[in-house]
């Protein structure tokens, strides 16, 4: 995980969930910038199904914290118009799986506004959306789709693995003049009813700070292999690294944080030292984040001690029954096994 401890050395630790961190960031930015507003389904009175807007309605009122109809095409399209008019909308797409009903506004309007206007009109909007499965919600509420969005020019795509990064990334995303797809993983969100990976609940400074978009972080140093993850899979990689250390294998873990822009150089720098690369990704395998990262390393002509590998969700819809779903989802044991296999075949 990242190291927020140094940033708050003077204060007693204050542990936040990612949900709380997101809501805190949006609220602080709404205080600072009157052009920021939030829109989405159930984000006002309910505070967001995944807690991303808790408390904002009471503080800022219904003009700036707007419950929308279940009408993503209209309100995400409206966000593009708000952004073109100089506002800074934060809109929530409740589940990333719902992108099918509103993709035109995202990839044909938001993503191309700067380009098609020759830079005259920007699109400073944040689209925050939940990703990921593992809780039996089946294939229309459990996808990751990082690569789907990462593939489209003109969009920035980020996903935090912990509360510290979530807050700093959200502040950076709102201030960015471009459309930012801010993904949050349901298994890290800290909602009581959903379970959470405890390592995602971290300290986060109360004040203003940004985690830069487009930068990966090394969250555990190692010498034998580079394991790259994002969101939930960072934690699976860290768990695996702990298991591997007991067997004398030293794994370095990179938290990608950003799918687009992709911090290729951070990964290359690590693999130059370790000579081995494994990517762990809960999005679909083919044409995915893993393929892109491995290509980035291969193109750089870095001497490798074993063929790069990837663990991802297979090219099937997400099944409902936990027996099947957990069989196909990545997990720490799969990471550990893959690393051991790579060490065996290495030169």
């Amino acid at each position, binding site marked *: 995980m990242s190291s927020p401890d140094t940033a708050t050395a003077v204060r007693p630790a204050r542990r936040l969930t990612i949900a709380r961190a997101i809501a805190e960031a949006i609220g602080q930015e709404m205080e600072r910038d009157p052009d920021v507003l939030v829109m989405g389904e159930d984000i006002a009175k309910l505070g967001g199904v995944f807690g991303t807007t808790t408390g904002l309605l009471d503080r800022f009122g219904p003009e700036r914290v707007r419950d*929308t109809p279940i009408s993503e095409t209209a309100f995400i*399209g409206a966000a593009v*118009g708000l952004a073109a*008019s*100089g506002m800074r909308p934060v809109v929530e797409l409740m589940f990333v799986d719902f992108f099918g009903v509103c993709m035109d506004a995202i990839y044909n309007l938001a993503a191309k506004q700067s380009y098609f206007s020759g*830079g005259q009109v920007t699109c400073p909007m944040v689209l925050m959306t939940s990703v990921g499965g593992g809780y039996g919600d089946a294939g229309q509420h459990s996808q990751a789709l990082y690569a789907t969005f990462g593939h489209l020019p003109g969009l920035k795509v980020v996903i935090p693995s912990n509360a510290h990064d979530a807050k700093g990334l959200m502040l950076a995303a709102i201030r960015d003049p471009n459309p930012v797809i801010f993904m949050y993983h349901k298994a890290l969100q800290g909602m009581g009813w959903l379970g959470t990976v405890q390592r995602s609940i971290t300290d986060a400074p109360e004040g203003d700070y940004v985690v830069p978009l487009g930068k990966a972080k090394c969250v555990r140093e190692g010498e034998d292999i580079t394991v790259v993850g994002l969101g939930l899979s960072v934690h699976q990689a860290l768990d695996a690294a702990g298991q591997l250390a007991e067997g004398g294998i030293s794994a370095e873990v990179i938290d990608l944080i950003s799918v687009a822009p992709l911090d290729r150089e951070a990964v290359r720098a690590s693999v130059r030292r370790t000579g081995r690369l494994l990517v762990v990704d809960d999005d679909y395998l083919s044409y995915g984040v893993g393929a892109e990262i491995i290509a980035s390393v291969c193109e750089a002509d870095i001497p490798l001690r074993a063929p790069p590998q990837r663990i991802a969700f297979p090219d099937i819809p997400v099944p409902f029954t936990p027996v099947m779903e957990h069989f196909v989802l990545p997990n720490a044991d799969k990471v550990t096994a893959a690393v051991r296999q790579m060490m065996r075949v290495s030169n």
Partner: protein
Amino acid sequence: MTGASNASDRLWMYATMIKSRHFEALIKPAYFEGKSPVFNMAKGPLPGEMHLSDGQEPCAVGVCAHLRPGDTVTATHRPHHVAIAKGVDLDAMAAEIFGKASGLSGGRGGHMHLFDARVNFACSGIIAQGLGPAVGAALASKLRGDDAVAVAFLGEGAANQGAFHEALNLASVWKVPAIFVIEDNAYGISVSKRDCTAVERNADRAAAYAMPGHFVAGNDADAVHTIAGEAIARARRGEGPSLLEIETCRLEGHFMGDAEGYRPEGEVERLKASDPIPAYRARLLADGFEAADLDRTAAEARAAVDAAFAFARAAAYPDPEEAFTHVFA
């Protein structure tokens, strides 16, 4: 302005319709340069699809006569008449269509993606796409407490898109100053409205979203001016959105090169016989306008277009490396 046509607005509408028609008239021969004897859309100084607006000018001028630079307009894949009426820079617009560096977007957008931030104009290539952004622009002006409005133009085919219905609902729920203007030219490419639209009058659909709906018959700039003026004034007063359905016609094909085999025999001839621009000139003369004044203002309009095309043709192409700029702000 209440919407009653006054002399200066009527003269402006006449001149602007002439300007738009002349713009398209200069596009036509330029489009076929390099595309004959064998038609290849990729060839010549104007590659790609080209959707001309001949016949639809009354919709643009009747609405835009009431608009200010601070008002937002989103238009369609058939945008030239609306862009010209909204006051988009004519030189930069022509240069954009020719793909030149001095075009509105430096050649990145072309004819279907014209942006002029100076007058808050944008258009896009997918039907009903501009409606959501217009709701957003209208919400921005409402939140800021100014009296700017946003107008989304669409074709009658777009009224069957989900985005149309979602945007009207949202605009009404939030009571934003948006005006939705349907240019009903009777065809979505080759399919006639009667074959694909469940209602006779799209204006009736306004009732589903608790907003006023107006049908304007006759492709008549004065009639559009009156109704649009009322809808826009209503929006500026903070009383919410309106839907306008304007009967118009497409004198050309869906795009240049369209063989128009779907048209009934004699339809184009009939439409051209009722061309709204000569008809408007005749009415202005009957109402006491001087022919010399109309001729002078028409000549000035044509000269501006001639100058814009000369500018565009003489302009330099962008450095190909410029393709990599402005992807992000």
